C-alpha cells in the first residue's frame, strides 16, 4: 500500500525531510501504527514516539491514532500549531 507522508515545522527539520513516498506493510493500517512503524527507524525518528506531542492529519483532516490509513492517502505529521 503506497502512501505519501509530509512533515512540517520543527518535526521536518528534526527528521531532515519534508516528504516521502512509502510502501506500507498491510498490517500498518492506522495513524498510530504508522507512527510506531516510523519511530522504529531509530535515531531522530523517536520524535514520532507515541508519547511525543505530535499531531497528525490524513488527507488534510486532523486525525487520531485510530484513524485509518489506506492506499493513496496523504498523511501529515506536525507539532502543535502556533499561528495567529
Amino acid at each position, binding site marked *: 500500500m503506497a502512501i505519501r507522508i509530509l512533515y512540517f*515545522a*520543527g518535526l521536518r527539520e528534526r527528521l531532515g525531510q519534508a516528504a516521502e513516498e512509502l510502501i506500507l506493510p498491510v498490517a500498518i493500517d492506522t495513524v498510530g501504527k504508522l507512527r510506531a512503524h516510523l519511530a522504529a527507524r531509530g535515531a531522530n525518528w523517536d520524535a514520532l514516539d507515541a508519547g511525543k*506531542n505530535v499531531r497528525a492529519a490524513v488527507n488534510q483532516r*486532523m486525525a487520531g491514532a485510530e484513524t485509518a490509513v489506506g492506499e493513496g492517502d496523504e498523511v*501529515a505529521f506536525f507539532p502543535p*500549531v*502556533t*499561528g*495567529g
Partner: protein
Amino acid sequence: MSVKVQAEDFDVGREIAAITRGNLAIGAVASFVGTVRGANDGAGVTAMTLEYYPGMTETSLDDIVAQARRRWDIIDALVVHRYGRLQPGEQIVLVVVAGEHRGEAFAACEFIMDFLKTEAPFWKKEETPHGSRWVDAREADDQAAGRWKNP
C-alpha cells in the same frame, strides 16, 4: 465568507470596505489584527517565519469560519493569514466579522481567532540574538478555545 493565505501584507481598511460596500444589512463590523512582537519569552525577536500546510490550512480556516457561521447569525466573515518571513511590527493575521449587531460580530471574531490559534496548521519560527527557535504551543490558547465548548 472568504479565507486568504498569502505572503503579501494586507490593508485592513480596504478589506473591511470590500465586505461592507453596498451591504446595508450590516450594522456592526468587528476586526482583529495580530502583529509580530519585538520580544517573546524573554528574548528579542528580530524576525519570524511562518510555515503552513498548503491545502489543509485553507480548508481548516474555511471550516472554522463555517462553524462561526452556524453558531452566530453573522452576515460575512474574512480571514487573511500571512506566511513567510516577517519583521517585528508587521501584520500577521486579520479577522473581520460583519453582522447586524455588535454582539455576534465580537463573539464570532473572538471564536475564529481562538480556533485559528489552536487548529489551523501554521507554525512560527523566531529569530533571536541567540539563534532561531520554533515557538511552542501555549496552554493558554487551548484554554481560550476550550471555553467555547460550554456556551
